[in-house]
């Protein structure tokens, strides 16, 4: 059965995924909107940066985050100057890492949803004298709702499945940085296969359910 440490790891993982997803929806929405609408020369570059975590190995992300957020890195010196201390080995550090790691999984579905709306509804809103914010909340948001659901679900699930970045910047601290994937790794290394099975099978079921819901919803029609 699951131990108290396993349950703590599950709770921490869900917390991390929830906080990360919330932050990503806030940051990702304007970025995706800009990417969907802009004709700027920087569009390609920004799109590429957003997609980087898709192709970079987590070791690269973890390695650079550790150096950037460390005492000699620019981010580390900034957080120290603010009196926040250093981010590695802390929950906040994991959130920062996860936000970057899961960025494309939130931005890309949003961008696609915004692009699918097209010019027409925005033009209609403009002729009805709707302001920019009004247009966004009463036209764009309802039309892009399926995109938001997909983005949130994928961002959440991908953060739950994070391992390499956490291993490199987390320091494996119970209830602070020891997430489920790291706990499983620990169990396997210590030959505690029974505990590893409980958590691993749980991850398989969770991931399947998430993707199943996502796919059945899509088949049911996005309208």
């Amino acid at each position: 059965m699951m131990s108290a440490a396993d349950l703590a790891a599950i709770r921490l993982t869900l917390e991390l995924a929830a906080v990360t997803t919330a932050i990503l929806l806030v940051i990702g929405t304007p970025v995706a909107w800009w990417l969907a609408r802009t004709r700027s020369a920087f569009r390609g570059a920004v799109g590429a940066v957003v997609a980087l975590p898709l192709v970079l190995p987590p070791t690269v992300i973890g390695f650079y985050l550790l150096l950037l957020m460390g005492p000699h890195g620019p981010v580390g010196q900034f957080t120290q100057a603010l009196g926040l201390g250093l981010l590695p080995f802390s929950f906040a550090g994991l959130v920062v890492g996860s936000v970057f790691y899961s960025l494309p999984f939130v931005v890309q579905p949003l961008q696609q949803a915004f692009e699918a709306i097209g010019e027409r509804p925005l033009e209609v809103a403009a002729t009805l004298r709707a302001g920019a914010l009004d247009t966004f909340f009463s036209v764009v948001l309802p039309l892009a709702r399926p995109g938001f659901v997909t983005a949130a679900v994928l961002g959440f699930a991908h953060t739950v499945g994070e391992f390499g970045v956490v291993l490199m910047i987390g320091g494996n601290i119970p209830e602070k940085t020891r997430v489920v994937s790291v706990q499983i790794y620990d169990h396997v290394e210590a030959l505690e296969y029974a505990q590893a099975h409980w958590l691993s099978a749980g991850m398989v079921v969770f991931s399947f359910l998430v993707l199943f819901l996502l796919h059945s919803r899509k088949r049911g029609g996005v309208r």
Partner: protein
Amino acid sequence: MEARFIRLAAGFAAAAALSTAHAAEVSVAVAANFTAPMQKIAAEFERDTGHKAQLAFGATGKFYAQIRNGAPFEVFLAADDTTPAKLEEEGATVAGSRFTYAIGKLVLWSAQPGVVDGKGDVLRRGAFAHLAIANPKTAPYGAAALEALRKLGVADALAAKLVTGENIAQAHQFVASGNAELGFVALSQVWADGRLTSGSAWPVPAGLHAPLRQDAVILAAGRDKPAARALAEFLRGAKAAAIIKSYGYGQ
């Protein structure tokens, strides 16, 4: 068509047999703390015998799990003596091939000069945010570190400050990058040619933890491999002994 294929295959087999008769490869699992000396030893070994040692570095406990599940390692240099003994009991090794190649030394180390004092009092003061150790569940140096903290009576007070590296190499990296102010590492990681390479350190007295006897063993996969036997032989020789000693290990 078929005959030609058979001839071709026979040719490949002959070529493969020829190459293994002279210079062979031996696949070696090496405890992370022994990384630097083993790289030097492997280079000397290749120069002397022509055999090439393929080295994999990691936590002893992880290697144990991998070997039990069919990893093709032929020689195993562990960070303790219990893991090779366990493999021997389970029949996963060549009987009688086990020997102690080094005795490890644990050291409390900081990348900054002046942080760690000569008596380890810094642990009692506790004026730091993070103390790095290797995972005590899988890495013998981590277990030794935890044992030392308990004997010093500071394990509970420092529990919230512990950050755990997956193996001793990651614990060292946490300290070297400055993200942890100090940590327990292997002396070999911060010691070369008879002195500390950087920062400040306190060699943990041997009485504070069980001795870190590091045993090597030839695994079942290396049973009929002359290169595996040659490496075990080489590790016991004078050349290897000099390298091992230069990194601060006892023998």
